[in-house]
């Protein structure tokens, strides 16, 4: 029986099989409409996360399965002081697979150690959010046709953004991927990541202005720059527009560049970009459902 705690739990070959399955689901949904008949997914969300939870629920329902669970700690037995270990033992009696989000880092791993059913980490604090990374990889592979040989720009809050860190960690396993980090000084990508890239001789550059590098990018991964991350208001006002993607900046980009964003978007991508055929962030949300469907099937298969 397998669990998913980190995007690196799967080898690149296993990920290829997972993504092949996700693409088959995308093109032949009817074939999978009853693949999980009689199966139950438990969504144990100790903190609210509408998008991720609904994506998991949609995935299971589209496979013919059913869903039960809770959407915040207050409505779970955690409010009575029950441990994660005890909760998952009980959930194992009620469901066939569990997706868990928890504010404490490592909570889904604790659950996986005690569980009789596969556990999927649906986000644990600032630590991991593997299904977001799988979503990003599937989107890139489906729309670009490959997970190697491209230049990806990552823009915004590169210091605290766990989705960015996980995506970099997953992409360095593929050949000829070059990174361009676009962020204010205060929100630069952590040193351990740049050290890792240097160690592996993976090319990267760090810049402050998005316009400078737009023409070089095959992919642009946008994230939100939050005001509270800045030390002072002045710097925020000076820099914030650098990180808002609009039609003028898109004019500098290649015709086949794709824009990704883990969502929710606040104002870092102007709505005028939404109609641009290169805007892939809403398709990305759709791929999030396909990859979760493929993941549920793969993990349930691992129990046989």
């Amino acid at each position, binding site marked *: 029986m397998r669990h998913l705690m980190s995007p690196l739990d799967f080898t690149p070959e296993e990920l290829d099989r997972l993504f092949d399955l996700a693409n088959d689901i995308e093109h032949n949904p009817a074939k999978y409409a009853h693949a999980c008949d009689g199966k139950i997914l438990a969504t144990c969300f100790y903190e609210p996360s509408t998008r991720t939870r609904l994506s998991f629920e949609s995935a299971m329902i589209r496979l013919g399965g059913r869903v039960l669970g809770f959407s915040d700690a207050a409505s779970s037995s955690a409010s009575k002081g029950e441990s994660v*270990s005890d909760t998952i033992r009980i959930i194992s009696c009620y469901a066939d697979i569990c997706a868990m989000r928890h504010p*404490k*880092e*490592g*909570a889904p*791993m*604790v659950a996986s150690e005690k569980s009789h059913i596969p556990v999927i980490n649906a986000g644990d604090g600032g*630590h991991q959010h593997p299904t977001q990374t799988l979503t990003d990889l599937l989107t890139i592979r489906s729309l670009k046709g490959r997970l190697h040989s491209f230049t990806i720009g990552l823009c915004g809050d590169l210091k605290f953004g766990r989705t960015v860190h996980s995506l970099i960690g997953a992409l360095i396993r593929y050949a000829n991927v070059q990174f361009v980090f676009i962020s204010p000084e205060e929100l630069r990508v952590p040193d351990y990541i740049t050290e890792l890239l240097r160690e592996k001789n993976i090319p990267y550059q760090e810049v402050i202005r998005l316009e400078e590098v737009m023409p070089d990018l095959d992919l642009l991964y946008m994230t939100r720059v939050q005001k509270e991350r800045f030390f002072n208001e002045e710097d925020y006002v000076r820099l914030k527009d650098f990180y808002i993607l609009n039609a003028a900046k898109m004019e500098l980009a290649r015709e086949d560049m794709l824009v990704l964003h883990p969502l929710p978007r606040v104002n870092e991508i102007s709505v005028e970009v939404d109609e641009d055929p290169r805007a892939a962030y809403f398709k990305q949300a759709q791929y999030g459902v396909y990859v979760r469907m493929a993941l549920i099937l793969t993990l349930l298969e691992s129990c046989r």
Partner: protein
Amino acid sequence: MLNVGKIEEGFVLDHIKAGKSLDIYDHLQLDKLDCTVAIIKNARSEKMGKKDILKVECDIDMLDLDVLGYIDHNITVNVIKNGEIVEKKDLVLPRQIKNVIKCHNPRCITSIEQELPHIFFLSDPEKEIYRCKYCEEKYSSRAK
């Protein structure tokens, strides 16, 4: 000069940093063993000035000394059989340590989950870096 007699079978842990022998006593859980233990504190040492020594008379298979590699790999471990030193063990950093250090990341599940052991894995032997099994918080063995 204080004299402590020879032991027949067991370990002599020499070159312990002065004052650290009681920590090692705790980590090795020697209080749980029904055996003779001599704790020598602040013994004179040419190499270290002052040092601590622990003598433990027990079956040599009874103790798991791996944790010493994390605590201080400069400790000399002499294995004694029939009153003689039969082996000097080289200490290496253990791949995993359990309940030796605590994860101080307040966002880690170990901060709230009942009776969850604090487990760390050696992630970078060269830099002596350990990471919490659950949250991957970094701890340097050199910083202790």
